[in-house]
């Protein structure tokens, strides 16, 4: 969920990337300005009904996205050390949590400025446990340390059905309704239902636009290096309900269509192999990942992580919204459901293989892979390879290991291609 990540661009950044940087900077600036005016600022988990605070015009920032950005700039190590050392958190918990709890501690000192981007200290927390249950403990610690309230939406996982069951939808809808009333009381602002509908519509326009853009990468060769999509995820996390995101996505769509028309691509070498990337990016190691993929002519054309933010629902229908927030994160789904989605994607994007990030932090996203690879291999016939890493903790990743695994995968893909072409 970072922005402006990866290798230092040699070429001028495309306009859409400049717009992303401007939008992100403005969101952070606005949050600091609100805080300075004495208004309330929130921190939220990544997949939370953000439409409500957007409607109430209350600034919210997203620790997971923030941690990704800090990690991509190689600034996370010191914070992680602070969490494990002075704050005594175990190294086994999610590195986003370690990094963010350390940041929350550090920013209590007004002179602290090392992390980038910095966030203002929050006045309240928004928590939905639809991605994992560790989020609950993380936010509980923040709440206790900072003495601030949590607005919590409890989401049930969907391990036994493909779509959330009726009783789960009702359970979540009731909580969303209560959250709206609670937020009205907490902020002292009146909730405008007409504006809410507009924000919901905008959120859907943006989600659908992003989906359309990603689908353009089904083309062979792909117009985009799949890693480029990581740069736009922040729009959906931070600003899914904003018009400025629509402007960015329309610009991006134009750029991708131009690549298609001119038969050009942002992938920096010849695309000989197309793979599905499974799991969160290794933010601090993105440069090495991309360089190695480029050297082996492998474009990771699609990954399940960038599509996780497409919260797809019917505007005006709270049940539909509840259902979307209950199931948008694949972590809430069964291994079978996820792997069938991945197999569809592998077929639709014409992938030759699957490269799976065994992420030390995110067990929820990783454990599916071990059983899942058999489902993928059986359904699609493509080979899968795993490598070790972490979304923020640089100590886990091994450059040599990544290269060997990728090379092994490439050699299988190459042999299969040669065999298929006689």
């Amino acid at each position: 969920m970072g922005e402006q990540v990866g290798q230092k661009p040699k070429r001028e950044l495309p306009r859409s990337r400049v717009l992303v940087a401007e939008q992100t900077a403005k969101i952070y600036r606005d949050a600091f300005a609100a805080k300075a005016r004495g208004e309330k600022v929130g921190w939220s988990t990544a997949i939370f009904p953000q439409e409500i605070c957007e409607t109430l015009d209350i600034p919210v920032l997203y620790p997971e996205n923030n941690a990704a950005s800090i990690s991509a700039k190689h600034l996370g190590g010191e914070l992680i050390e602070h969490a494990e050392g002075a704050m005594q958190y175990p190294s086994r918990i999610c590195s986003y949590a370690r990094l963010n709890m350390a940041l929350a501690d550090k920013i209590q000192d007004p002179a602290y400025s090392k992390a980038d981007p910095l966030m203002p200290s929050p006045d309240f927390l928004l928590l939905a446990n639809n991605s994992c249950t560790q989020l609950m403990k993380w936010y509980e610690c923040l709440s206790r340390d900072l003495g601030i309230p949590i607005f919590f939406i409890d989401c049930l996982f969907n391990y036994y059905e493909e779509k959330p069951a009726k009783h789960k939808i009702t359970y979540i809808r009731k909580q969303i309704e209560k959250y709206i009333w609670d937020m009205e009381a907490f902020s002292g602002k009146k909730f405008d239902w007409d504006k809410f509908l507009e924000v919901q519509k905008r959120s859907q326009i943006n989600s659908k636009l992003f989906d359309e853009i990603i689908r353009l990468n089904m083309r062979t060769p792909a117009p985009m290096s799949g890693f480029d999509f990581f740069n736009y995820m922040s729009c959906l996390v931070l600003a899914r309900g904003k018009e400025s995101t629509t402007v960015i996505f329309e610009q991006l769509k134009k750029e991708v269509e131009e690549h298609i028309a001119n038969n050009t691509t942002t992938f920096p070498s010849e695309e000989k192999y197309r793979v599905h990337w499974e799991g969160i990016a290794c933010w601090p190691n993105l440069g090495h990942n991309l360089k190695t993929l480029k050297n082996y002519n492998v474009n990771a054309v699609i990954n399940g992580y960038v599509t996780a933010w497409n919260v797809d629902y019917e505007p005006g229908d709270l049940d539909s919204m509840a259902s979307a927030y209950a199931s948008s994160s694949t972590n809430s789904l069964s291994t079978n459901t996820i792997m069938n989605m991945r197999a569809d994607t592998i077929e639709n994007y014409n992938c030759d293989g699957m490269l799976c990030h065994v992420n030390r932090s995110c067990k929820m996203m990783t454990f599916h892979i071990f059983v899942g690879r058999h489902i993928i291999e059986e359904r699609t016939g493509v080979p899968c390879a795993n490598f070790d890493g972490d979304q923020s903790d640089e100590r886990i990743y091994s450059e040599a290991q990544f290269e060997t695994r990728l090379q092994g995968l490439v050699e299988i893909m190459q042999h299969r291609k040669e065999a298929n072409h006689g």
Partner: protein
Amino acid sequence: MFTLGIDIGSTACKAVILQDGARVEARAVVPLGTGTSGAGDVLQKVLAVKNRQIEDMERILVTGYGRFTFAGADSQKSELSCHARGVNFLFPSVRTIIDIGGQDIKAMRVNAKGFLENFVMNDKCAAGTGKFLDVMARIINVKVNDLGEIGLKATEEVNISNTCTVFAESEVISKLSAAVRIEDLVAGIHRSVAKRVASLAFRNGIVPEVAMSGGVALNKGVVALLEEEIKRNILVHEDCQLAGALGAAVLAYEELHK
């Protein structure tokens, strides 16, 4: 025509000269890994076997951890493909290969032609690797090459519950101070390696026949316990440690005939 395959591993360098892609002309092993004089030494050693010159080699293919740093290579390939081809050369009927190297464990499935079909490798952890055995041999004060014979003389196994090399090291030290028999302790160490490797092999699916490659395959104690764990016979060739280098020489030959 001669092709040369060199496998620059983390703890040893191996080299094979192959004649016409079919006959092993010379082989050499140097117990020094990447970053040492091992690669240069193994080259000199393998050429010296039949008094060959480097110019006699039509193509040199390098594999292993140090594959990117060898200056004289014509090409390089991952150790996965090289082990697959090497074992296929030695045992064409093998479909599952288990390789325990200095710092990697690999479980590979190969087709009849020795092409890699899929693989899994250990995570970033030394448990179950050659390095693990090196550390244990050092504490017990025996040669790592003798571990196999020692373990086979066990009358009962001492249970080693830690898989982490560092914790297993202190566990072994505490057992030593409790005066257990060395043979039983070595068998316990081998069991912990076998269990770890078996779970990786199961994860990748085991299709008969099964062979082991890599230096640890020479350890009869580990092989016997691994056979027990996976409930299958394991083929071990006397050249098992050279499988990566042999595969590299085979692939070098094929590259010339593409």
